[in-house]
């Protein structure tokens, strides 16, 4: 198992509401996983716990905090997080910096990553001038250029139309290395359809849909 949680519960401090109630999931290298569920069902919380940004109220997380030093995670959020005044190439190069790449190496890797998501032509453009779908593909390239063990995408197509959503997810699935695990939180059945495993999160409980 590459990453996972076992019997995890989560409750925000000073609230009674249980966000996650005994959720368990084990992901292997190369898995492509969709986590579906209604708004507020705890998808983002589960991803944050998987990614080590949140500590669960109870339950176990693998790898533990101490064992994560060598685990590279690429993040993609619904809100497009880019440096708007910098070019697409600059933004993707930041992902390569995460791997300790030098300036020149980072730029050549970023160029290759942009090509792999079909954004090579726009690499010199300012991020603020790109469309939502193009921006999200830049973010996909930035996540992948760091050669992550796992990509965690929190509703990456939530603000995109159907056509753009398809382009982004296709870019992610097609460009990812075989061993990279992808976890996507989504409302979109079309996105889930492109993933190998699909989980549903409802009332804090997680269950996997049979293939």
């Amino acid at each position: 198992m590459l990453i996972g949680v076992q019997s995890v519960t989560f409750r925000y401090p000073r609230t009674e509401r249980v966000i996650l109630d005994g959720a368990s999931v084990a992901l292997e290298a190369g898995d492509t996983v969709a986590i579906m569920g209604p708004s507020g069902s705890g998808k983002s919380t589960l991803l944050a716990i998987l990614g080590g940004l949140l500590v669960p109220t109870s339950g176990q997380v693998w790898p533990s905090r101490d064992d994560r030093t060598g685990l590279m995670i690429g993040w993609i959020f619904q809100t497009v997080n880019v440096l708007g005044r910098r070019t697409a190439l600059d933004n993707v190069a930041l992902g390569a910096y995460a791997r300790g790449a030098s300036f020149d190496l980072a730029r050549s890797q970023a160029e290759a990553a942009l090509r792999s998501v079909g954004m090579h032509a726009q690499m010199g453009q300012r991020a603020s001038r790109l469309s939502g779908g193009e921006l999200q593909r830049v973010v996909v390239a930035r996540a992948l250029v760091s050669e992550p063990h796992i990509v965690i995408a929190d509703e990456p197509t939530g603000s995109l139309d159907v056509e753009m959503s398809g382009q982004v997810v296709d870019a992610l699935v097609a460009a990812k290395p075989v061993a990279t695990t992808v976890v996507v939180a989504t409302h979109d059945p079309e996105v889930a359809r492109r993933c190998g495993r699909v989980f549903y999160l409802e009332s804090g409980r997680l269950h996997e849909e049979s293939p």
Partner: protein
Amino acid sequence: MIGWRWSNAPLEVVANLRANRVRNAIVGLFCAVASGVLFFAEMTATQSSVTTLRALEAAGRSVYVVEPSTETGVPLLNSETCDGLVRLPQVRASGGLTFSGFVDFKTAPGTPFRLFLATGSFARVVDPDSVAPSSSGLPTVMVARQALFQAGLKDGEAVSFVNGTEVAVHSFDPVLRHPLGALMVVAPRPPGLVEQCWFELRDADLAEASAVAQSAFVQSELRVSVRSAQDTNEFTTDPVRVFEQRSSRFGWLVLGFVMAVPLLVVAWLSRQQSAIYRSLYASRTAVLAIVAGEAVAVIVWGAAVGSAVALAVADQGESVEAASALVGLSAVCLAVALAIGLAIGGVSMTTRGQLTDQLKDR
């Protein structure tokens, strides 16, 4: 390897400076104007004090007069003690003085000049620029420049003096430092008792002058008093005090906060940028270096430009002394240091908190 190379941080600073050039130019211009105003205010305040101080020093700000505490009308001070003061490191020149009555010259009969008998380096006390006359074989009498002109004499001319003694007259300029300087004639006299002892300290300090005189004259068992040669009253300004109490002295504090405001606003608006770097495995220190580095560059650029322009403007009017420019520069440097400290603190705040929240925060 996971994590950033440190060498990439300055490259990011440069790239962000270029990418945000319009914003940075506006903030930099703001810093330039603020720095320029402070630099100019401090520099002109200092320049004004320095000019006043120079004028007062030329007029004998550091010259003191020792007299017996009780007025007896007869010379009581030992001229050798007075002349010996010059051997003290803090004393620039010293000499005894006794008023000897009025004298006239054949070239201007009937015009009474004031004749003083002096010892030591009295002439240098009242005229620091006076030079010892080259020996012509004749006794020398120093005559105030105005008196020399009034008597129709020339510098170095041999004239018949009191009792028909042949002397050489040399001009000096005691007008600024001695109240009777305009018509002053000073003849040398052998060591003995004098009415007054004049001396100049290297720095003006009445307390020190008193201590110097009291300790020098203590052996004579004579009570002496020391006063400044300059007349002072409630309208006399002390340039040192004026400088110390200038209104712009805390300007650096105000300017530091003023310059920090736009930088803190920019830091607050850049919190998502900080979160992006953090999500890409840049350490908090690296993020701080990148975001604060941009702010530091803008402040320093603004302060340097503002100071240079203020210096150039001030230099158009009258030449600015290095000391004045240094005071202006020091104030700006203090303000810049404060603004940088506040900006770093602000940026540091933006690198804390929940990463997921900051990335969603737009």
